[in-house]
């Protein structure tokens, strides 16, 4: 006791009680760290329990599964850092694939015309989501819940009305298909491993999003509008524009994912995509994004998507009943959220 009392007598020149952060704490303060530890643990776990898990083949399958959800998780995580949700993201992927497919097919046009029209339509959908949110002032949860159901209904309704079927006819023999497939759904061989091109696109998007978030003014604004929109507005950040842009970012990756869907399978099931929006959000949250906004990272969301892919395929490689996948996913979401919460509190608590 005496020692602790005696110590302050020595003039330790500390300004008030600022910063006593060790490098370890700083590391723990990163949004990705929880997900990274989780990913390593899962990797070791499946490596030990599933014989075929540690093969090049399995790895490329896992990467592919991760990339298809990871591409969406990139923009969804940005949106969540910006403080909003988009529940329409899952069906928007299907919408964009349907638009491209049916537009080209019905008007017998080059497939690239459909791809371009789809991009415009999907971006417009994102813009509408954002505009509705900004103009009504309703929570984005409600706004996009509405557009989610509207799109899900329209996907089925329009497809049935036009093609008398719940799926679109195959477009594999149309002009431009093979070139588009090269871009959106081809296979490559890298270092002896067969890799889907979506994996490369995914990594590129993560890199761009990370640079955007941490090194540009736009990224600064994303964190600000999610962390405290009134404060951001008070210092001159264009809050409405930033939010709309984020919704359009989700639309952009939805378009990209839709194109992959279309060119990987050449026909689109109009009922697909429902429920996927939650997987994107789960990837982002496991990756350290706060549900309340203002905190998170694109790299974290990528690790979250990797965890998602590992679990999805790992269960198969471990020869368990894949029905349990969603159970594990839900459990991991809870664990990840709690871990992130605890880690962040530890790292940030000062008073």
């Amino acid at each position: 006791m005496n020692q602790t009392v005696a110590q302050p007598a020595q003039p330790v020149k500390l300004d008030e009680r600022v910063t006593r952060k060790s490098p370890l704490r700083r590391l723990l303060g990163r949004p990705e760290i929880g997900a990274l530890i989780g990913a390593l643990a899962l990797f070791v776990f499946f490596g030990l329990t599933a014989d075929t898990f540690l093969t090049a083949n399995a790895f490329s399958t896992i990467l592919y599964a991760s990339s298809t959800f990871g591409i969406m998780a990139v923009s969804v995580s940005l949106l969540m850092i910006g403080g909003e949700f988009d529940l329409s993201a899952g069906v928007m992927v299907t919408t964009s694939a349907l638009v491209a497919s049916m537009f080209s097919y019905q008007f017998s046009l080059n497939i690239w015309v459909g791809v371009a029209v789809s991009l415009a339509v999907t971006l417009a959908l994102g813009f509408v989501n954002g505009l509705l949110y900004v103009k009504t002032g309703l929570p984005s949860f409600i706004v996009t819940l509405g557009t989610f159901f509207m799109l899900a209904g329209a996907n089925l309704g329009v497809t049935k009305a036009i093609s008398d079927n719940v799926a679109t006819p195959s477009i594999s023999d149309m002009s431009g298909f093979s070139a588009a497939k090269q871009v959106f759904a081809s296979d490559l061989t890298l270092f002896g491993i067969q890799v889907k091109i979506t994996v490369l696109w995914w990594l590129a998007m993560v890199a761009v999003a990370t640079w955007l978030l941490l090194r540009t003014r736009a990224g600064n604004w994303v964190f600000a509008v999610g962390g405290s929109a009134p404060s951001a507005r008070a210092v001159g950040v264009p809050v409405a524009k930033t939010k709309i842009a984020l919704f359009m970012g989700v639309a952009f990756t939805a378009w990209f994912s839709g194109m992959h869907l279309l060119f990987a399978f050449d026909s689109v099931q109009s009922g697909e995509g429902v429920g996927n929006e939650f997987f994107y959000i789960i990837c982002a949250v496991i990756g350290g994004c706060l549900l309340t906004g203002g905190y998170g990272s694109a790299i974290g969301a990528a690790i979250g998507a990797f965890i998602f892919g590992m679990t999805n395929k790992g269960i198969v490689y471990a020869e368990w009943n894949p029905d349990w996948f969603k159970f594990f996913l839900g459990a991991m979401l809870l664990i990840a959220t709690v871990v992130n919460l605890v880690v962040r509190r530890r790292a940030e608590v000062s008073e």
Partner: protein
Amino acid sequence: MSETRAPLVRLAGVGKHYGNIIALQDVSLEVSAGEVVCVLGDNGAGKSTLIKIVSGLHRHDSGTYEVSGEEVRFGSPRDALDRGIATVYQDLAVVPLMPVWRNFFLGSERRRGIGRLDIDFMRRTTKSELLEMGIDLRDVDQPIGTLSGGERQCVAIARAVHFGAKVLILDEPTAALGVKQAGVVLRYIVRARERGLGVIFITHNPHHAYPVGDRFLLLKRGRGIGYHRKDEVTREELTALMAGGAELEQLAHELEGIESGAAEELSAEVKRLGLTDA
């Protein structure tokens, strides 16, 4: 500089009403460079209406408002800011989860090329600007939410100074702070004055106002009930002039007849308010 320098901000007979409610009536105020004017008043005295007019959030209905001798009618806080009048509100307009330096430059980010942030410059500037005002942050990368209330307040003030404020309006900067933290902010106000800024310091605490103020404007029910230079008024008089002192005393007398315990506590409170230093 001209010989007869007009005050940075001069209000003369300013009034404001919301519908049929008179929020402010015939209030005058002057702030020159290197001067701290304290606006004192209880809740509902019209302090916030007054700063809303000065900061450009609202327009006055009567009287004149001059900035450096020029009459103005601001349409928005942006207009006021362009004339060098910056307001630091109670909520500070900071984003708690963002690093200190990002908060410092938020909305006015310094860039190299298209969109790319000049992070190095912003980190260094934040650190040196804060150091200038006596806050030595070892790590400008920590989230601003981890700073104490007083430090956060100081960052917000330093930000306003850095971006060219000539007049600082501080809205109850010490209200939510502990004694020591309030001291940090008061010291900062003095530094801002030394740097030649005019400061309008809104508070309801005469113990915070007296040590740093050059002039004191007392508001009550939307009217000015006193405008004093420091040499014309003592701390005790200032306290007594504030609604609190006199009315508490009266309340203590009234309670004396009813319940002795409460009355004693209250009169002790009055004494403490009148005598102790903050």
